[in-house]
């Protein structure tokens, strides 16, 4: 069971959180093509290694935030606000 640092409540057990999947997906506008829309809805990098994803402290403050986590080792290397977009 992982320990996840909620930016507002501090470090808590994994089972207080909900994972919302890949972070920083850009939502296409209504006039996007079917392909663009399908990419947004379904297609993911799904890396084995470092992954930017979003989590919610569901049993705590209820806030969403971004996490950089290794999908193989489960080590968490960074946590940052939901509104922040890292330079890619």
């Amino acid at each position, binding site marked *: *069971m992982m320990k996840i640092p909620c930016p507002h409540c501090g470090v808590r057990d994994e089972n207080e959180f909900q994972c919302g999947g890949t972070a920083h997906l850009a*939502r296409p506008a209504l006039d*996007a093509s*079917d392909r663009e829309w399908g990419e947004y*809805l379904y297609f993911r990098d799904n890396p084995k290694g470092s992954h930017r994803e979003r989590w919610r402290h569901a049993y705590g403050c209820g806030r969403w935030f971004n996490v950089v986590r290794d999908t193989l080792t489960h080590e968490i290397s960074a946590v940052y606000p939901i509104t922040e977009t890292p330079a890619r």
Partner: protein
Amino acid sequence: MSGFRLPEPHGTRIDRTRPIPFLFNGKVLAGFRGDTLASALLANGVRLVGRSYKLHRARGVFGCGFEEPNAIVDLVDGERRTPDVRATTLELTEGLAAQSVNCWPSVGLDFGAVLGAFAPFLPAGFYYKTFMWPDWHWFEPAIRWMAGLGRTSLAPDRDRYEEICVDADVAVVGGGIAGLSAAVAAAEAGAATTLLCAAPAAGGALGWRGDATVRALLAKAGRAGVTLLTRTVAFGVYDHGLLCATESLAAATPGTHGALRERLWKIRARSIVSAQGAFERPMLFPGNDRPGVMLAGAAEKYAHAHATACGRRAVIAANADSAYAVARSLRAAGIEIVAVVDRRPPESIGAHAEGVRCLAHHGIRQVIGGRGVRGCVVVDADAPGDRGERLDCDLILSAGGFAPAVHLHSQAKGRLRWLEDAAMFVPDGAAPGLHSVGACAGVFARSAALEHAAEVGRSLALGFTVPPPPVGGAGRSLASSRIPGVRGKIFLDLQNDVTVSDVSLAAAENYRSVEHLKRYTTTGMATDQGKTSNVNALVLMGEATQRAPAEVGTTTFRPPFAPVSFGALVGRRVGNRYRPLKRLPAAGWHAEHGALFELFGNWSRPAGYPRADESLESAAQREAETVRGAVGVFDGSPLGKIEIWGADAAEFLDLMYVGTMSSLAPGQARYGLLLNEHGVIVDDGVVARLGTGHFWVNTTSAGVERTAAAFEEWLQCEYPNLRALVTPVTSRWGNVTVSGPKAWATLATIGLDRRFAPETMQHMTIADGEFDGSPVRILRASFTGELSYEINVPVERTRDLLERVWAAAAPLGGCPYGIEALEILRTEKGYLHVGVDTDGTTLPGDVGFARGLERKRANFVGRRSLLRPAARNPGRSRLVGLKPADGRTRLPVGAQIANAPPPTATEGHVTSSHWSPTLRAPVALAMLARGAERLGETVGVHHLGQRIDAIVVATSWIDPEGKRLHG
């Protein structure tokens, strides 16, 4: 019968003043407090304790701890059985009754033992090569019956289990001297330290030998504030340093039912120290599974800790110097040591056995005695075919070297290396967050282990660099613990009856990777998980494939280190605590009025209020009819309630719902469908505007948490600049819904303001008022098609309101109604029930909500998905009404629609179906392909082989114009 009790002063762990009678296979035996079941059985001369898994061979106690493959018993206590218990770790308690497993009719006379005669035809994986014709099903039942060990009871377990979560700076696993030393040093350096010890008392091997160092360390541990947990088995290291262990409380409360049996410890430790010691590696020789063959260290422990001699005359089969220490120790206890048969050449033997006959470079060729050792034949390792020498003995001890218990290290993702000299795997550096000390680190010299462990404890406490372990001290052992060339059945995994030749077979057939070897031969897959067989198996596979053991590989150890009861893992999450059960705030009122409660999601709600002579179904008919004819009272408290506030609240709701909410005037309400981003309907409800920037949202009772969470996710992640706040208030408000033509007539008499009368308060409006000094929020919305008032009241006043409403409704011929009646009423009206008439593929157009979407400006959630080709396919299903062609037969929910007889392509299915008491005819809703174009068509409705013809009709049967809604 060859084991017996040694006189005092032997027996450091037993209390001879506390005799304990117990039952084994129905026979009354006696032991002492401090015995394990295994030590007590041995002391009573019991040799035959069980039968092996595959061949049902006679087996005796082999080890003294978690490594035990043979002495597995069922505990029986009336109806209650505990299957597959290791006798070697089970403390003897008053009233304990144990039974041998896997034997019938008894462990002595086991019909299954006839399998032994067929053993040559049953090599590893034999079942993959046969039983194919005519079919596996012909053979499987017999094989299932033969397999399995103990028997489980079918009565619910009445004992309790709990879980506790603690922090530690340093958690030390293992109460031997290395563990004690590390714990004391860590605690003395100021670390909050917890020491987990599987045994009833800390101290380990030196402890039961009565060593003074242990006593001193224990005293220090107490003074330094080490938290000592005994009878606590650490079984797993999980992500981010979570250490899990189970504490057995059963020995402390023998014979009680419904007591706390085990406690699960979840320890968040900054650092973990593993000091789990080492397992002894058995020698491999023909007949090495016979009762009377056991691990040397185990025999020594039984003698000293439990004053139990496992035999009178022992031969020790050796591949390690430890054999000589055991020999001396047992001889001092009065057990005759016939010889140490040492597999190693004389120059490798580092110990001296004064007065003990040492046969170097020898091995056992044969064990004499089927159900108990009577002797053995030993031969020179270079001449395994010679006649050899017969040694008379009743005990053969195996001292094949040691296998450090690297389980936790491996679980923590530590690597291993093979130590050639000592023939063992040891940790290759520390694992992340976990350091090994003592024998499990490969440190066998006592003083070195003490010093290193102390250094590790201190370093972890103070944040210093942790020193590497001074590996060594075990002497020399050969990788192979057998002498080549001897023939006969040599057992590698005793419980699963895996033999040395099975490994050769696996190698020949190319099951050579360690995982293939395990899976093909089943070695290491028994309840002991290969604690005595893993290293031997790797060595044998290495020999067979000309590889070093390390090249064969090591299996990755995963939790649990030792089996853990389901009960301990589940803790208090049983019964109603498995998942919180939600009850109505006025549940008592409903019970008093005859409610039949059922579970709807996690809510316990009245399904109906059947009278003495009524079924639920007939009650629902009566209740529905009463609502149409007079008035009904319904508890809608579970209905989801969310308040939304802020300058951008209206804009936000436009983005969330299919409908446009920003055009509502304050006081107005509108029905809304909620989609997910795939365009699928996930919830529905009513959105009411309380003020310019303030909305009241009703959701389904099952959907409120999901909906509130979705609102938050969109707000926080996609629209962080919108000024809107979402506060769920479901629990704050009770909800009493009054529905029917006499709804206002009822409410007019309970003291509500006249402005709520239907003439002045329109359908789909909301207003605040007062009831008996409390605020109420009244919504004019209807799930029944009748004039309806949903009265939200502070939750603690729900019962008061219900009582007042009921006092007014009853004289008007009203009744309380439950979910079943509500379902009838809404189906008659053709009102959608999300999750019943829809599933996870239903789009708004499928239920007739396509119109007007193009005109809406906001890009609401899911909108883009509705533009995809599949969403615009004219062949999609559409919600329709169905009535049976004969006017009488109810259409079963779930029945499939097709005109051709099955098997054929389905065109839809029935989603809701009821007998309408108002129409005196069945009504049904269905999803039907192109349903909107098919009104009037007759279709076949198929249910479990039966066909009913039905006619496609519009969805609303009652008052399609909606006049009744307005009173």
